């Protein structure tokens, strides 16, 4: 009898474990943000990640006024899909609700331009383009080698050169995007108010205070319980690893 009950129980609870994104989306649409957030979290936990799911989860947290988690998920979404306008917009909105003023260091215009170009497509897109150009290059070389018409051969030669260069460039882009995706060096402050110490110790001198939602860079990841972080203006200090969440 009891076994039967257990089985019944398991069967009953089973659908809860396999949430689909559609369910979560409809929960969000019904303004049940908390439930939607739980469902999205489960999808990420059990099924896999996606820019859209992270984005929706960020939205669900934003609606619950949990700015830190919203920013974290927007950042994760943006990492997977850097070209998305919506994610960038919502992230900016969430960032405007944080306490600390984020003063981005001015960068050289070429760097900005390059970053913009790099982030205009995901790692997969760049890799696919690289492959396409590789194939074009192969075809062009073949055309150059085996076609007798002089014009076609000239076109083939030029297109082969261009395609090979583009293939290399796109591969560099793809590899950089991949490195960015795999390197978990950025983190979001999850504590509402966090003391940053000079040493990895509770007794360390208090250097400055940052608030939830602030994006920081992890400089020293070697310790288990403490991480050395760096702000965008170059300030460094130690925080407990439980107080931050890696993007």
């Amino acid at each position, binding site marked *: 009898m009891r076994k039967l009950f257990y089985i019944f129980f398991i069967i009953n609870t089973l659908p809860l474990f396999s949430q689909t994104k559609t369910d979560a989306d409809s929960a969000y649409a019904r303004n049940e943000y908390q439930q939607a957030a739980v469902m999205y979290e489960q999808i990420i936990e059990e099924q896999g990640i996606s820019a*859209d799911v992270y984005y929706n989860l960020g939205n669900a947290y934003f609606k619950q006024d949990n700015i830190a988690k919203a920013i974290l998920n927007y950042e994760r979404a943006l990492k997977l899909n850097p070209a998305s306008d919506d994610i960038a917009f919502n992230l900016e909105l969430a960032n405007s609700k944080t306490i600390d003023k984020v003063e981005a260091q001015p960068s050289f215009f070429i760097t900005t331009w390059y970053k913009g170009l790099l982030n205009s497509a995901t790692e997969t897109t760049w*890799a696919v383009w690289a492959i396409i150009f590789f194939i074009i290059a*192969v075809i062009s070389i073949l055309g150059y*080698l085996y076609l007798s018409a002089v014009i076609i051969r000239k076109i083939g030669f030029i297109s082969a050169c261009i395609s090979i260069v583009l293939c290399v460039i796109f591969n560099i882009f793809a590899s950089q995007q*991949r490195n960015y995706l795999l390197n978990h060096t950025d983190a979001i402050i999850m504590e509402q108010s966090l003391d940053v110490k000079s040493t990895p110790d509770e007794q360390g001198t208090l250097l400055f205070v940052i608030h939830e939602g602030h994006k920081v860079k992890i400089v020293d990841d070697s310790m288990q319980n403490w991480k050395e972080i760096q702000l965008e203006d170059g300030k460094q200090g130690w925080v407990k690893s439980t107080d931050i969440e890696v993007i």
Partner: protein
Amino acid sequence: MKRLLYLFAFIFTSVCCWAGEDVTFTTNAPDVVVSGDQFRLTYTVTTQKVRDFRAPTIKGFEVLMGPSRSSQSSTQIINGKVSSTSSITFTYILMAEKEGTYQISGATIVADGENLTSNPVTIKVLPPDKANGESADASNGNSSSRNQSETKVGSNELFILATANKTTVYEQEAILLTYKVYTTVNLTQLYGDMPDMQGFHSQEVELPQQKTWSIERYKDRNYQTTVYRQYVLFPQKSGTLEIPSVTFDGVVTQRVTTSDPFDAFFNGGMNYVEQKKKLVTPKVNIQVKPLPAKPANYSSGVGEFSLTSSINTTQCKTNDAITIKLTISGTGNMKLINTPDIDFPQDFEVYDPKIDNNFSLSRDGLTGSKTIEYLAIPRHPGKFTIPAIEMAYFDLKSQSYKVLRTQPYEITVEKGEGNAEQVIANFSNKENVRLIGSDIRFIKLGKPHLLKKNETFFASTAYYLWYIVSALVFMAIVLLTSKKHAQNSNKSLLKMKKANKVAVKRMKIAGKLLKEKKQNEFYDEVLKAMWGYISDKLSISVSELSKDNIEEKLTQKNVSSAMISDFIKVLNDCEFARYAPGNQTEKMDNIYSSAIDIISKIENSIKH
């Protein structure tokens, strides 16, 4: 029942106490008298209903009179409120006989049906002044001495002594410095500047305006004394500090008897002469010991203190004020105690503390309490700890540092409704103003393309496969076509192989034309055959061929020069014959046979 009983008992006793407090029974007598002096001993009870007054036995004094009973009563009506006081006083007039210290125990009385006992008094009897001789009446003696002393007031008749209650102290330990006037003459005025005490923080003790004089024996002489000024000093540095001598100006009124009859008539023979006298107090040296090595959180307090703290709330919302009240109470250099700093969390907006001093001077320094109110406003939600406040002071009793500590407070700050932090943030952030009223964009619907964490296409197997496959395809195509290419490169060889066949074909056509005697067509065909043959054989297009480069190319192909010249001769003959007039059947036969001959010869010589 029992409770009721207790209640009754409580009410009853409290009423009794209240009633009992109303009636007092006190003894009054001077503290010091000179033997031979008369003085009053009075017992006062503040009620009219008395009986059974029993005075104690008065030893050491001679009762000259008493007890005499006098009663007093007064009624006041202020704004219709009637209050009345009444008292009965029993007075004895006593005379001191022998010097010494005597105690008179309290008298008993039944007042308002209650037994009351008055306080005992101690009276010190001093010996009479030797200067005044054995005069029993001290006051008479005094006046007579005044009469006699027309000369200056001596330094032993009026002087001021400066005394410190301690001469060896620690830094910041309070010293009571007293300027006491000793006089046997009628001192009417006394003034002087406040002493300039370097190295001390001084505070004057406020003395009653009306000086009370008392008799004190000093150096075998009875003086009228009073405390003129009193200071509490806090030494600010260690070493031997000197309280400098101070000069006071005193005015003494002396009664002078004159022998002038007119004067005696108008002034009754008496005259008062004012005499000024400079009074110089002695120096006082104070040994000030330095304090031992100071601890870190030393508050510069010396004395005896206690520390209490309170907080108005430990659970609040953002932008609500938190007040911590710190009370330092005790005795010592209260004024100089540093206000302890509270390490408020950085997120708190901290205001200057409000300090409320409530202390008074006493012999041991300042006694009372110092209340410090710290006001802080948390601006952000979270859990915060306000650490314990530590205050070290030098305890004079144990002569060591003691640390006072309050308890730390855990504060939970919730997000307030007003959300002022955003308003604050908006001032500094222009961007926020633009974004107010906007909302996040809606979620993305539809099926997601779920990936595993850290899964990338770049550098994945599929990625490499694409390259490998396309590279393989490329190589396959190259390999496949290379054979064809090789064959293609043998195309000229093929042509060369075919050259003879083509030439033979053409020669056959030429043979036909020879039989038909078509002269022009015959020569054309022969020339075509020869040129075509040599073009194929040398892999040179017909257009590029000339007689010169034929010669050259054939030489390269190791064809003998005789054969070359034969070949060119046939070509020349052909061209020559073609435009020559007349029948040339014979010649045509010749050229035909020689062309076939030379082609077969060259064919044989260029063999592969």
